[in-house]
């Protein structure tokens, strides 16, 4: 329930955060839009000139840009479903009765990956997936599998990124799902269990409706994080080998930070932003109950 109040009161409550977010969120964005209309290279500051939409034309016709968008999309469509399947599985397992201490311990263990600094995940990946000194290849060796060149091969490097994304975020999905499962009224679940012993039927007919909001949240947050994905890849492969793991954020960073082409990087960033806002809007419209 809500109430109508004086505009000045509303302004007092909301003003500071609107102002703050406008200052740090919108002002730089407008500046970025302005710069994206220029040829502006940090190492050629004296050659700055207004070029209109030329940077946008360059970006939109640049196969490299679309390839990195495609790579980002593939990552999302491979890794998020994996996380959801594994996450729901783990949640169902944790939801079962018995083995209290072990389950509590598992819940604690699940908290760790998602709290880990993303940049550190990439560094860990470098150490553990090293072709020669890496412990993963040692494990594979026990199973009689020849050393895999994880970081040096385009396909394997991509798999390694997916692996670590799954490692870090499956626990997140599992915990959200577990919380959703716990919101199923026990009486209903109990009654269903008396009727059928099949977990699949219970999942589909009883639990799934309660899982949907959580799934939507997972989908929204994972979409945002996949578009943002930078730290872990930057510290693991820096987009390589070649461009095998050059996701969109890595590409933009490279343009701005290594080619110093701030104009072009800003155009790429604005296009990414437009896509982001579009997706966010669509998601929230489709799935999400807004403030009433």
């Amino acid at each position: 329930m809500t109430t109508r109040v004086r505009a000045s009161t509303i302004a007092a409550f909301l003003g500071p955060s609107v102002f703050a977010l406008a200052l740090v969120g919108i002002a730089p964005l407008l500046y970025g839009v302005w710069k994206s209309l220029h040829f502006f290279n940090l190492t050629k500051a004296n050659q700055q000139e207004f070029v209109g939409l030329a940077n946008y034309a360059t970006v939109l016709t640049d196969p490299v840009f679309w390839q990195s968008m495609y790579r980002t999309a593939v990552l999302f469509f491979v890794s998020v479903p994996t996380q959801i399947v594994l996450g729901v599985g783990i949640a169902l397992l944790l939801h079962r009765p018995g083995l209290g201490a072990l389950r509590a311990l598992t819940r604690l263990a699940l908290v760790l990956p998602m709290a880990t600094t993303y940049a550190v995940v990439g560094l860990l990946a470098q150490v553990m997936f090293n072709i020669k000194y890496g412990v993963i290849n040692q494990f594979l060796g026990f199973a009689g599998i020849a050393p895999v060149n994880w970081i040096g091969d385009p396909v394997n490097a991509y798999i390694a990124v997916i692996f670590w994304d799954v490692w870090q975020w499956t626990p997140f999905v599992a915990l959200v799902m577990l919380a959703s499962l716990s919101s199923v009224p026990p009486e209903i679940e109990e009654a269903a269990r008396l009727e059928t012993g099949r977990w699949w039927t219970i999942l589909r007919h009883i639990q799934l409706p309660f899982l949907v909001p959580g799934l939507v949240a997972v989908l929204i947050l994972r979409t945002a994080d996949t578009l943002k994905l930078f730290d872990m890849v930057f510290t693991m492969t820096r987009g390589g080998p070649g461009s095998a793991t050059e996701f969109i954020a890595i590409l933009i960073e490279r343009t701005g930070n290594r080619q110093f082409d701030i104009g072009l990087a800003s155009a790429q960033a604005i296009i990414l932003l437009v896509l982001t806002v579009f997706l966010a809007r669509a998601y929230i419209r489709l799935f999400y109950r807004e403030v009433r």
Partner: protein
Amino acid sequence: MKLRNCVSAFAFMALGLAAGSQAASAWSLEEAAKPYAGTTVDVVFLDRPGYNAAKEMLPEFESKTGIKVNITTLPYENALGEQVRDFVAQGDLDAALIDLVWIGNFAENGWIVPADTFTKDPKLADPDLDMNDFFPLVLNAFGGWNGTIYGLPFDNYSGLLFYNKCMLKDAGFDGPPETWADLKDKYGPALTKDGKFAFALQSKRNETQSADSFARMLWPFGGSFLTKDFKSNLNSPESQAGLNFRQDLMKYMPPGIVSYDHAEAVNALAQGDVAMITEWSAFYSTLTNKDTSKIGDCLAIAPEPKGPAGRKPALGGFSLAVATQADDNEKAAAWLMIQWLTSKANAQTYLEKGGVPARQSVYQNADNAKRFTYIPALVESWQDGVPEFRPRFAEWPTITEIVQEWGSKMMLGEVSVEEGAKTIGAKMEEVLQKAGYYDGKKPLAQ
């Protein structure tokens, strides 16, 4: 290129200095630094042997002068970006660390101060500075741009062939390959077996790809990046021969060579996994360090192999220059530090602590050549190198990104050598066009 003019200008200047030195015979570092005691000099260093040597030496400088040196250590791949952003933002760096391929860029932006500002100042110039003692090639390539000297050579490299003579001997070779063709056709098949590989060419998609891998194969085969009129020369038969050679050579390299940076290549040799690498001279101290290297007495060093067009080894290295953004005190203090670190008097210490000085005098000491086995090969490489091994103009940071991207794609087989070279050429010409080389706005200097 105006190297010759530049050299003669310096010879002249050095004469002038020599004449002046009688008058200023009372010059001492302590005296010169007195007005600047308490000044802090901010500088970027890398995590490489030469810098660690300098770090060990600098306390002496600090106690003599009262100048404090504040070092920020960065990985090479971040060093350009951090410095560019600092200079653009008018930050606090007082000295610039300049890879030879950055010098055109830094100089054109006016971020670094010409050295003669200080060498002409009798209060600051050490009478024993002796610019002629630097290898002329090194001084001009690392520290000079368009006829002006900005930086003094500090961390100096030439490409060398490091090899495991025990592995070569076991395979029936008495010495290292003299030519690239031998390396591929004779040494390659003989040394690639039992999980070991004949050769590793660091080719990661960063400066390593363009400098250590791409350019290294262009020049010995007679190729180059640019023609005389600054058009792409990458599709010339010579350049193509070099790039195709690189592609063929990959079968004697470990898999995943496109993810090898310096650390991986050096380590592969150090651990006995590959028999030969072509690497910078500066790795000598890493490879001889018993804590990190198993190669021990099997390590041997030779000049890089020859191609049809001659030796043309890779040339690279860093100079230190005073940054324009520093205030006058910081400028003077920074100059004193640079001058001291690269001085003739300190060259021996620097060498012993693991650095590679660019002073000719220190290499004339026969004893040194015995103790540091890379010296003969190094000195030979510095007699006759290609300063534009990688063009040093302001556009290089943009062009190197193109070379890195498409050079890696080539090696991975994602594009053919010919297609890749064409793409690099077209993109490179676009950059040069924009920069104004084709309509005479800019002199064709590389």
